[in-house]
């Protein structure tokens, strides 16, 4: 079990955004997190990544409690993420965005740089190559020298994924990775996520696009008004009566 979420509750003033949410994410899974707007999905991702604290409850990553750790310590354990409202470094080029994302894996000591040693130069070449590999994996290596702020919407989402990959995380949290993307872009991202999972990375993703989630995810958790309705394989989740009522609408089974 890579990630265990146990009885997580989060209040914002008088609003209970999450109410005793519990589920687990297995190692190597592509785990979907769905639910109507305001269900608490992004809040949960923020809590897992250490940006928000839970009001109560616990989260274990590889058996270690992480609910009280600051975001940078959670990241150091191997959790990377993207943001729903894309957070790139707009004044850096795509390549620089990914090089910046190598913070946890690149040493970049100052002294060899001050002395202009060959080791510093070879490390810089190395960083560049690894960053280019991340960009090409996300399918935007042709944009390497473009400023992050100058990309199209879909490219920004992919650059964010490329930057998250730069630290070789164990768990990748994707907050609406294909929102606003056209169909062929969605398929590329879907293929990318599959190939990451095939490499042993675990993925927890939020997405509104049902076709995308149902086809891609091995397990799905449904949230509504801060509560978990159900967790299961896509076929079961899609036919769960409460899910159909609360989220999909009507009484039709969506597979």
């Amino acid at each position: 079990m890579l990630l265990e979420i146990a009885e997580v509750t989060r209040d914002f003033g008088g609003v209970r955004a999450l109410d005793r949410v519990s589920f687990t994410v297995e190692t190597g899974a592509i785990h979907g997190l769905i639910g109507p707007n305001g269900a608490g999905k992004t809040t949960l991702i923020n809590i897992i990544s250490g940006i928000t604290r839970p009001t109560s409850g616990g989260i274990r990553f590889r058996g270690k409690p992480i609910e009280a750790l600051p975001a940078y310590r959670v990241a150091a354990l191997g959790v990377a993420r993207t943001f729903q409202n894309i957070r790139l470094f707009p004044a850096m080029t795509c390549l620089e965005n990914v090089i910046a994302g190598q913070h946890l894996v690149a040493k970049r000591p100052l002294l060899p740089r001050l002395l202009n040693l060959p080791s510093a130069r070879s490390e810089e070449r190395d960083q560049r190559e690894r960053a280019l590999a991340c960009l090409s994996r996300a399918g935007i290596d042709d944009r390497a020298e473009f400023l992050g702020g100058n990309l199209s919407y879909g490219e920004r989402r992919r650059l964010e994924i490329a930057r998250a990959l730069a630290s070789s995380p164990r768990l990748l949290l994707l907050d609406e990775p294909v929102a606003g993307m056209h169909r062929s872009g969605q398929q590329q991202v879907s293929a990318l996520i599959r190939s990451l999972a095939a490499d042993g990375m675990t993925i927890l993703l939020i997405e509104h696009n049902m076709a995308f989630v149902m086809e891609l995810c091995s397990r799905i958790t449904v949230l509504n008004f801060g509560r978990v309705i159900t967790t299961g394989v896509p076929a079961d989740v899609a036919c769960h009566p409460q899910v159909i009522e609360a989220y999909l609408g009507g009484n039709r089974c969506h597979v």
Partner: protein
Amino acid sequence: MAFLSQFFAIYGDLVNFIGINALLALSLYVTLAAGQLSLGNAAFAAIGGYTAGILTMHFHAPYAAALAAGALLAGAVAFLIGFPVLRLRGVYLAMATLAFGEVVRIAAINLDITGGAQGLVGIPNYSRGWLIYLTLAAVCYLLAKLRQSRFGWALESIREDETAAAAMGVDTTSYKTLAFALGAVIAGLTGGIYAHLHFLIAPRDFGFSVAVDLLVFNIVGGTRRWYGPVFGAILLTALPEVLRGVGVTAGPLRMFVNGLILLLVILFLPNGLVSLFMPKPTTTAGDQAVVPVNKS
């Protein structure tokens, strides 16, 4: 050679002062590089200047040791202020350092050891122009190389987006504090050099207007690269002399011209004057492939 010696006889002070201002501008640049605004760097220069001056005057400390002590004390004070304040985001550092600058100035006016409002008089005249420029070159080299290090990349990330930086593993509070303290060390060192240049320093040398001048040097020059603030400091420090050369006397007009330059730069060159010389990254202008059209 005759020309050079004549030039230095007339403008030696100005040349030295340009170097001092460039160093102080760089001290603020380090903090700005992490997206944090400090209005306390004049006060750190005061701490460095008074400390070094008192040590050489009253305790006959060697010049280098006095400079080091001033720089380290300024850095230590910055660390103590920065660590609690920089846990927060936003304008809190500007507010705290604004208050801190006044505290230092008023303390310097009221303490006996600092010579009160009159200032510290009779500091041995150890500083030389070459030393100022050697220090400036060393600081420039350090900052240019620092940018390629783990520290430099972390600061750039924090400046661009603090939340994203934290999510990819940057310990934002520590890096911001380090950047602030490093800036204070540079300011403190510069203050020490300045103190040994003219026999005396006074509280007014390090007032609020100096702190704002440093910010203006950075904005006019540009804060994307280390040479921006250096360029800004050279330009704005030399400007009154240049204006005098064309018949405009210094005084209130200097403020007006500075303000005008600042306004024009903000309006037309938001990344500072150095953006005129920086290589342009690939942009989207006229490139239809990058315009966001794939919404479907």
